[in-house]
C-alpha cells in the first residue's frame, strides 16, 4: 500500500521545481505496470464488490439492489458466526505460537554455529511450501487414521487409530500445527533484527552480572520489539485470510461439523457454490473491516510495548 502514498506524493509534488518535469513522466512510466494492475485488478473489482454487496446476485441474472439485506442476513446466519469463531481461534492460538517458535529458533541460530546457512534454509523451507496444495494433502495423510502422527504416537506406546482430521474437536488444531510449522519467514526476519542489536549492550550487561535470561528480557526483547510488532501485524493479517489449507484438508467443506470452516472458505462457498455473490461480497467487506480493526488494535497497543531507538 505504500506505493499508493508514493504515487500520491509524486502527483502532489509535480510542480515543485526540484523535480525536473521529465522525471515525473519517467517515474509514471516506470510505475505504469503497477498502476494498471492496482487500478484494474484491485481497485475496480474492490469497488465493484462493494457495489454488489448491496445486491442479490447469482452471476447469471443481473444484480438486483436489496439495500442492507446481505449485511442483516449475517446477524441471523449461524454459520457466519461459527466461521468467525473458528478463524479467530485459529488466529489467536497460531500467531503467538508461531512467533514464539520463530523467535526461539532465531535466537539459537544467532549464536553462530557451523552450518548456519544450512539450518536457516532448512527451517525456512516449510514456509515456502506451507501454503501449497501439496503440503495440505500431505497434512491430511499425516493426521489421518493410518497417518504418520499415529505411527509416531505408537513409538510411545499410544496405540490409536484416531483420525485427527476427521474429528471436529481436533481438526482445527492440525491446521494450527501446520501454521506454526511455517515459522521460517518470521524467523528470517527475526534473525536479521537480532544482527542489528549492538553487541556492546550484551557485553555491558554481562559485566554488570546479568545472566542470559535477563539479557534476553532486558536487551533482546525491547530492541527487537519493532520487528516483533511487524511480524505480529503481518501474521494476524495473513492468518485471518488462510484458505488453501482448510480447503484441501476438508475437501472444500470446512468440515467435519464446520470445525475448519474458515471465514474465507465460507465466503468462497457462499459465492461460488451457493451462488450468493452479493452475500459473499458483503462477507468480504466485513472481513476487510475486521482485519482493519485488528490491525488498528495492534497499532494502538504497540505504544505500550514497542520501543523505537530514535
Amino acid at each position, binding site marked *: 500500500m505504500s506505493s499508493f502514498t508514493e504515487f500520491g506524493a509524486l502527483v502532489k509534488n509535480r510542480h515543485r521545481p526540484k523535480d525536473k518535469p521529465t522525471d515525473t513522466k519517467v517515474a509514471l512510466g516506470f510505475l505504469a505496470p503497477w498502476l494498471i494492475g492496482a487500478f484494474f485488478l484491485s481497485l475496480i473489482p474492490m469497488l465493484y464488490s462493494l457495489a454488489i454487496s448491496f445486491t442479490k446476485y447469482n*452471476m447469471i441474472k443481473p444484480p438486483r439492489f436489496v439495500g442492507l439485506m446481505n449485511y442483516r442476513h449475517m446477524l441471523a446466519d449461524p454459520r457466519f458466526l461459527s466461521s468467525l469463531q473458528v478463524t479467530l481461534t485459529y488466529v489467536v492460538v497460531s500467531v503467538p505460537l508461531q512467533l514464539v517458535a520463530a523467535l526461539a529458533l532465531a535466537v539459537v541460530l544467532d549464536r553462530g554455529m557451523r552450518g548456519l546457512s544450512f539450518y536457516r534454509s532448512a527451517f525456512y523451507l516449510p514456509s515456502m511450501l506451507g501454503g501449497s496444495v501439496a503440503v495440505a494433502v500431505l497434512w491430511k495423510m499425516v493426521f*489421518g487414521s493410518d497417518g504418520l502422527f499415529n505411527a509416531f504416537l505408537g513409538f510411545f506406546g499410544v496405540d490409536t487409530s484416531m483420525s485427527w482430521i476427521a474429528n471436529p474437536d481436533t481438526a482445527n488444531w492440525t491446521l494450527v500445527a501446520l501454521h506454526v510449522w511455517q515459522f521460517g519467514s518470521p524467523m528470517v526476519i527475526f534473525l536479521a533484527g537480532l544482527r542489528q542489536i549492538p553487541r556492546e549492550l550484551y557485553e555491558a550487561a554481562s559485566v554488570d552480572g546479568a545472566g542470559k535470561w535477563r539479557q534476553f528480557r532486558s536487551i533482546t526483547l525491547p530492541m527487537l520489539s519493532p520487528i516483533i510488532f511487524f511480524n505480529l501485524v503481518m501474521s494476524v493479517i495473513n492468518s485471518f485470510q488462510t*484458505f488453501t489449507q482448510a480447503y484441501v484438508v476438508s475437501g*472444500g467443506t470446512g468440515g467435519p461439523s464446520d470445525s475448519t470452516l474458515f471465514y474465507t472458505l465460507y465466503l468462497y462457498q457462499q459465492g461460488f457454490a451457493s451462488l450468493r455473490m452479493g452475500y459473499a461480497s458483503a462477507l468480504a467487506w466485513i472481513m476487510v473491516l475486521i482485519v482493519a480493526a485488528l490491525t488498528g488494535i495492534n497499532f494502538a497497543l504497540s505504544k505500550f510495548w514497542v520501543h523505537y531507538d530514535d
Partner: protein
Amino acid sequence: MFNRMWRRYLAAVMAAVALCVSAACGSSVGASDVPVVPSDGDVTIRLDWWGGDSRVETTEKAVAAFEKLHPNIHVDMEYSDWTGYWDKLAVQSAGGNAPDVMQMDELYLAFYGSMGSLLDLNKASKYLDLDGMDSSLRSMGVVEGRQVAAPATTAQYGVIVNNAVLRELGLTLPDTDHWTWSEFADFAGQVTEKSGGRIIGSLAPNNGYALQLWARQHGDRLFDGNRIVIPPETLASFLKLPADWAVDGVEGSRERWSENSAAALNDSDFGKGRQAMMITQATMITPYAQAAGTDDMSIVPLPQIDPGSRTMYLKPGMYWSVSSQSQHPAEAAMLVDYLINDGGAGAILGTERGIPANDGIRRALAKDATGTDRKALAFIDKIRPTLGDAPSITPNGASELDKTIIRYQQDVVFGKRSAIDAAHAMIAELQESIDFAS
C-alpha cells in the same frame, strides 16, 4: 498483502465485470432465438463435462466417431473435476459463454433450467430422440414445463458386497431379496465384531439420493416443488443413522465414518478391501472392485422398512443439456442424440457415466458385458418390481444438499446437537436457501 484466495476472488469478480460490460450485463440472459436448423457450412460446437481420466478417454473416442459421421461438425472438448466444473460453468453462463453441450447433474438442473440458460429440447425433437427411455426418467429432465435436459444414464442405489471379505471371515449374507434395515445392521455388526474392527460392516449413507429413498421408505417425500416436505422426525432418523451405527459397531467408530465420508474412492475403507458392504450406486461396483483388487463383488437390493414396496425410482445419473445461447442448437442436439442413442457410442462409452438411459443400449451392453459390469447392468431388472413414480427434482437453491446432509450428520455423530434439533435446523436452512434463490 492480499493472499492468493483474495486475489482469485477479485479476479473472478473482475472477470464478471468485464464480461458484464462486454455482454451488456443482463442482455446475456435468455435464449439466443437461433432457429433449430442445421447450417450448411462448417460448424464448431463446444462440449464440456466433469470426470476422471477414463471418462476423458471414452468421450474423446465417441466424439471422434461422431465427427466422422458429420464431417462438417467439429467438437471442441473441455473437462474439469466436479467442483471446478460448476465454478467454471457459473462464470461462463454469466458471460454468455456457456458450452453448447454440457453434462448436467440433478442437483444443479433446477438452477440452470429456471435461469433460462438451457434449451428446451422439445424444440430440437427433429434431431434428438428421447423416446428410447422410460417416461418417468425422461420427466426428471423437465423444469418449469420445459425439457431442459436429456437423461444420459440412470443410477440405482443398492448394496455392493465384497464377497471375498465375507468368505475370509466365514460369514454368509442373509436373504437380501427382502431384507430390512435391522437385518442389514445386525449382519454388518457381525462383520466388525468378527474381524476385531479390522474390517467394518458398512457405512451410513450420507447424500441426497439416499435421503430421498429413506423418505420414500417412510411413506414421505423430500421435496414438493419448492417446498421441503419431509417430516422432521423422518429426517432426524436419517441424520442419526451414522451415530447409531457407530455405536452398534457397524462402522467401527464415528471418526472412521467421518473420515470415509470425505475420502476419495481409493482411500476409502471399501476401496481398500476393509469394509464388507457399501450402500451406493450400482455402477460403482467396477471401480470399487478394481480399487479393492478383487472381482468377487456383487450387488444386492437396498434394505427396506417394508420389503418389496415400491420405494425405488429411476434417478438420472447424469444428463446432457444444450445451452439456450448456443449458435448451433441443431448440431448440439445431434451430438446429444448420438451420445445417448447411438449403438456405437453406447459401446464406446459403456457404463462409465452410469447405466445407459436408453434401454435398448443397456440391453445390448448387458449381453456382451462380463464380470462386475454385467452385474451392474442387470441390477435394474432385479429392482424393477420395486420401482415407483419419479419424485420432484432438487429445487433451485438446494444444490448444496449433499454437503449439508454430511454437515448435520457430523453434528449429530459428534454430539453437537440432537438429531431432532439438527433436522429442524437443516429444514430451516435449506428452505431459506430455496426461498432466497427463487
